[in-house]
């Protein structure tokens, strides 16, 4: 039987690479004595599949994984859940699990939306009057500017990957950017901080990171985001139903 599990990836655990998560669950399930089903064949591997990989270092508040386990009697589900919860490392918390009905689409095929919260400092640019500058910066992040920026046909971004530079159009991956909060002049250097919600498209065509989006926005609109110090968390992953409403992966 297949279970879909919702979990967090926080604290030190957020630095665990996506590829290492399979092994982590495999071992936790073994310790909890919940048996995972393995594929047949010469090199059997555990039937564990994720939706959208969460980039290393980002907090995930509600991530999902599908795991095929040996059938559990319904009355043992609760107990197994408790055992499993106790075998997860700090930062990984099992939030919920449910048995998936037959023919439920895979996470990979289902998910099309990711929602991020980003808290990012904006550096003070030299030679400017502090008060003036902060006001200006905040005005840069207003609805009109963002809408105007997003109204472009394409937004090119140079992604550096293993020493190579690839140019891609990130516009199709952006659903929305909204300003959630702002805190002017947080420190002595006069930098301020904004909190944003960024919604992106997930899918076969790849994905973009919120920091890449902010990199491009900052470049085009002259905002000095301090992306090295950005705190990014993914609050959830979703799929859009026919009416265009956001639905959680466990709403299937």
């Amino acid at each position, binding site marked *: 039987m297949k279970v879909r599990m919702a979990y967090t990836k926080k604290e*030190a655990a957020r630095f*665990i690479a996506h590829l290492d998560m399979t092994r982590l669950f495999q*071992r*936790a399930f*073994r*310790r909890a004595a919940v048996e995972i089903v393995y594929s047949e064949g010469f090199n059997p591997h555990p039937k564990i599949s994720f939706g959208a990989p969460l980039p*290393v*270092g980002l907090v995930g508040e509600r991530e999902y994984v599908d795991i095929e386990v040996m059938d559990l009697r319904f009355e043992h589900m609760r107990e197994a859940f408790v055992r499993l919860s106790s075998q997860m490392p*700090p930062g990984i918390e099992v939030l919920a699990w449910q048995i998936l009905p037959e023919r439920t689409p895979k996470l990979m095929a289902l998910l099309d939306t990711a929602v991020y919260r980003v808290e990012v400092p904006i550096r003070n640019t030299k030679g400017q009057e502090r008060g003036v500058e902060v006001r200006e910066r905040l005005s840069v992040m207003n609805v009109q500017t963002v809408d105007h920026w997003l109204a472009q046909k394409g937004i090119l971004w140079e992604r550096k990957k293993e020493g190579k530079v690839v140019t891609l159009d990130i516009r199709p991956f952006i659903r929305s950017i909204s300003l959630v909060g702002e805190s002017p002049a947080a420190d002595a250097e006069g930098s301020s901080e904004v909190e944003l919600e960024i919604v992106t498209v997930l899918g076969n065509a790849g994905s973009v990171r919120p920091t890449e989006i902010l990199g491009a926005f900052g470049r085009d609109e002259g905002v000095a985001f301090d992306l*090295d110090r950005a705190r990014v968390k993914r609050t959830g992953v979703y799929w859009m139903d026919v009416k265009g409403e956001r639905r959680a992966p466990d709403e299937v």
Partner: protein
Amino acid sequence: MFREKGELSEKIEGILPRVAKPGRYTGGEWNMMVKDWRSVEGRMVFVFPDVYEVGMSNLALRIIYGLVNADSRFLCERAFAPWPDMEDCMRDEGVPLFALESKRPVASFDVVGFTLQYELSYTNVLNCLSLAGLSLRAENRRGGDPWIIAGGPCACNPEPLAPFVDVFFLGEAEEQLLVLLDILAVGKLEQRAARDEQACRVIRRKTLRRAVEVPGVYVPEFYTHGRGLEEPSGIAERTGVTTLTGQPAPEESDVIPAVAGGAPYVAEGAPELVKKAVVRDFEGAYFPDKPLVPYLEIVHDRGSLEIMRGCGRGCRFCQAGMIYRPVRERSVETLLVQARSMLEATGYDEVSLVSLSSGDYSRINELLRGLMAELEPRKCNVSLPSLRLDSFDVQIAREVQKVRKSGLTFAPEAGTQRLRDVINKNVTDEDLFRVAEEVFREGWQQIKLYYMIGLPTETWEDLEGIVEQVRGVLAAAKRAGRRGARVTVSASSFVPKPHTPFQWEAQDTPETLLEKQAFLRAGLKVMKVKFSYHDVYMSWAEGLLARGDRRLANVLESLAAAGARFDGWTEYFRSEMWREALVEAGVDGDWYTSRVRSEEERLPWDHLDCGVRKEILLRERAKANALVGGQE
């Protein structure tokens, strides 16, 4: 700096998004032990002077981490050498070397314990000290600084590191380390309460004197250099006996921390001969049954069962075979219990049998059958990394294969019977071909052959012998009907090691080794066999340190100053740096590596007893000289 724990954690977290594999520095592994700093009397940090993935695979780390933490008086945390990308960020941001558990600076512990697993990690030892913000030389450290201790196989000749380390520990930790820690913790407590540095020095002396009473403890500052401080010039001019390799031996040489003629050179109270610590009760010795389970993939990512310690085969080049004696086995019953509890605590799906020569375990079949019964229902595997030809049993391989087919390795070590007799490797061509044919018939597709080049008395004929032997293995594959079989050959370079019958021999120069490698490469190429070999300059540097003395400390120090690190990694090893450091220190490197040492010469490790007496080594050497096999 960084008195507050959280302050450093925050800085580290700020760096992590910028480095490769941040999981190396976060801690948080399953079964990690975080003890309350104030609830214990002694705080130790175990530093593995190499990258996380290597260090975490090491059994000594697992044993010591568990052993110390299991004692309510102490805590043990871990630190690893940060990979250069991380080190650069740490230096930029002013982050000192820190322990993964509490993120406290290494310098704030009472005891910093290094493990010396290979010589080329010595530059990392110094780099770790410097990253920790500590003075390299013991004499420059102050009472508030931690004790620096070091153990592991290379401690059997630790002289190149002598000025940097307060206490070396020779031999096995399980029964004596806690005794030593207790003494050091008390000393540190007293030092921290002391009025001034003068008082600290008195306490230091007193503490170290207590420490030397513990078996295995070697305090280098209690031993001073003897005569022969001047390096003899022009070895070639010397006359003397012709030895194994046909080179003339010098009459007088070497610098030693002398114990010869005894007392004058040894501080009162310190033993003239330091004996390694040996675990008497191996069966009942501490076993880490809740080992750390890392998240990022490490080199040996599985549970380890130490089935046996020591190896009785007596190969003459092999240091491990000499210094881990006597041979001791754990009972099948104990091992099965250990395997079960380890699997339950870790969730590992593979158990690896650890020993120098697992095929020699007297009840190996019974053990494997027991393990299979335990593991198969859990879908776990057993792996046997050190099966070797001379003890190889196809039956054993078949047992292991039942769960998973792993590659097979054989180590004939030398290409001709004559040379195998010299090194006391009792394997014949017939054995090899017969077993190879058998395993190919059993269905294995791949065999790996391990050789060593540059062995004493080696000639071109012996190298030709390697090529011939490989040809024979390929023919065996053909006979077994496996035309697609893959045979790979690995040739390491022989490095003479202390406490072995070959400790007096000359090491081949890098130039000679290059020639030999080229010869093999050409010979194997026609057979389309994959051939791998070692960097000859790295072997040279390894040999330099392995049989080095205290003058090499200056060399290490200038290497560290020049930024040497990760010298065990081909991509970071720079032989020019080593040559420059030798010149700067005014030390002739070849004098350590390329000459045959006289049997009368005092060797830098002669005051350290690692289990095999010098007479026995001499006798074995004489046998090798006479080209006879056999052992004591």
